């Protein structure tokens, strides 16, 4: 009776696993092309100001959106298959290799989800950046700024670099302050520990007297028990002799 059930579970598991591996391969390929599309979108965005202002952003946006929806649906499908494999593994019974493979598949799904989210965030940032800075007068502005404001631009760029250094210094100072706070809390903890140890040392005589009292009580209990046993034994002997 068990053999057909086990065979059915086994075949279902293998089929699900095969499908999961196929989707994982597809996801890997699509994520790579998605990342390349993001890089191309950046170049297209910068190029659209000079060469052609109409079609490349729209075309890139369309293919980018369709690719994103494809990857999203594949991730959802892989999640469903992982859940099905989980249920198969639970019903089939405890098997270590099955559990390990299931954990491996779950890790792969988690990795793909994280990577997709990161690339999507990057592409969103780049697209917003390009959209914010694009204008119909890009070429005129570029010509004007590159032609006539060279020394002033250099000075401003240098000052921006100094400001960037100041920001980095602020970050380092924040880390140092956080470290100092943690060290302070550690010192407080050690002070508490020292106080507790001192209190425990003060309590040692009381503990010693307590132990002595326990020992005396235990010996008294032993004596009482011995007396009771002796009395019962004596009573049994007397009863036997009189009978």
């Amino acid at each position, binding site marked *: 009776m068990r053999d057909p059930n086990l065979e059915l579970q086994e075949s279902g598991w293998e089929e699900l696993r095969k499908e999961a591996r196929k989707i994982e391969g597809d996801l890997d390929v699509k994520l790579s092309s998605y990342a390349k599309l993001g890089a191309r979108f950046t170049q297209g965005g910068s190029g659209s100001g000079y060469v052609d202002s109409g079609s490349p952003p729209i075309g890139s946006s369309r293919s980018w959106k369709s690719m994103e929806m494809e990857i999203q649906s594949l991730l959802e499908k892989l999640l469903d298959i992982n859940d099905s494999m989980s249920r198969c593994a639970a019903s089939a019974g405890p098997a*270590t290799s099955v*559990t390990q493979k299931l954990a491996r598949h779950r890790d792969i799904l988690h990795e793909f989800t994280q990577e997709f*989210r990161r690339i999507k965030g990057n592409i969103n940032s780049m697209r917003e950046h390009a959209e*914010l*800075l694009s*204008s119909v*007068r890009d070429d005129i502005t570029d010509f004007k700024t590159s032609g006539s404001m060279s020394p002033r631009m250099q000075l401003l760029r240098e000052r921006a670099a100094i*400001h960037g250094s100041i920001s980095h210094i*602020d970050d380092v*100072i924040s880390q140092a302050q956080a470290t100092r706070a943690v060290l302070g809390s550690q010192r407080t903890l050690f002070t508490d520990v020292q106080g507790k140890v001192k209190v425990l040392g003060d309590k040692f005589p009381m503990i010693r007297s307590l132990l002595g009292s326990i020992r005396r009580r235990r010996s008294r209990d032993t004596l009482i028990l011995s007396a009771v046993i002796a009395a019962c034994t004596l009573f049994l002997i007397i009863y036997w002799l009189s009978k």
Partner: protein
Amino acid sequence: MADQLSKGEEFEKKAEKKLSGWGLFGSKYEDAADLFDKAANCFKLAKSWDKAGATYLKLASCHLKLESKHEAAQAHVDAAHSYKKTNINESVSCLDQAVNLFCDIGRLSMAARYLKEIAELYEGEQNIEQALVYYEKSADFFQNEEVTTSANQCKQKVAQFAAQLEQYQKSIEIYEEIARQSLNNNLLKYGVKGHLLNAGICQLCKGDVIAVTNALERYQELDPTFSGTREYRFLADIAAAIDEEDVAKFTDVVKEFDSMTPLDSWKTTLLLRVKEKLKAKELEEDDLT
């Protein structure tokens, strides 16, 4: 891994037997807690995160029976760290219980730290509303314990997420407060223009040019050196462009600033909102004409 898994299950069975049995000598909860701890360790070594989390929750129940709230809170934290790899919702609920226990025993700094951890989990899950709520709680607790640096870090996160959720007034107040505090600190006062720039961008998003002008005057009073910075000129030029409803001028100002200091994605998002609003207004004007 197989050995660790079977060993963990064995320890768990022993612990359950201890709990179900009647303890004649000593406390059954203490013994069960010890066995649950060993079982959870074995599950972690076997990479069975769900089982480890569930076992840590049982350990927390044992410690609560023993009236050891600190150990129970620590067990909840361990459970949360185990669940973090598989189940975010369960992890958040465990940390929530740990925070409640730490509040009961008066360890507010640890409660604040784990509230911040919950907020970071929600941030990773792209749940901005919940991340904002927990960062706010964490900032309050850090402020209560006078840990100003961590409180300010959490407040900056609150301001960032509030602006993303279009709660600009809250964001403005937080940035201005942080700028005011930074002015009193010799180490941090050089970063004040960054905070004031963020506050100014949030003012621009509100769409009130008079409020922006008043804010800029207030910032000059706060920091006399601010009026000479590029950030001030950037905000003033954008306010002028909005006043004139000139999208081209707006774009030129932003492009010039971006060529010097590249804008991060948060500023880009907010400035894009301002530009969209300006474009819509300009289109209305054109239609009227």
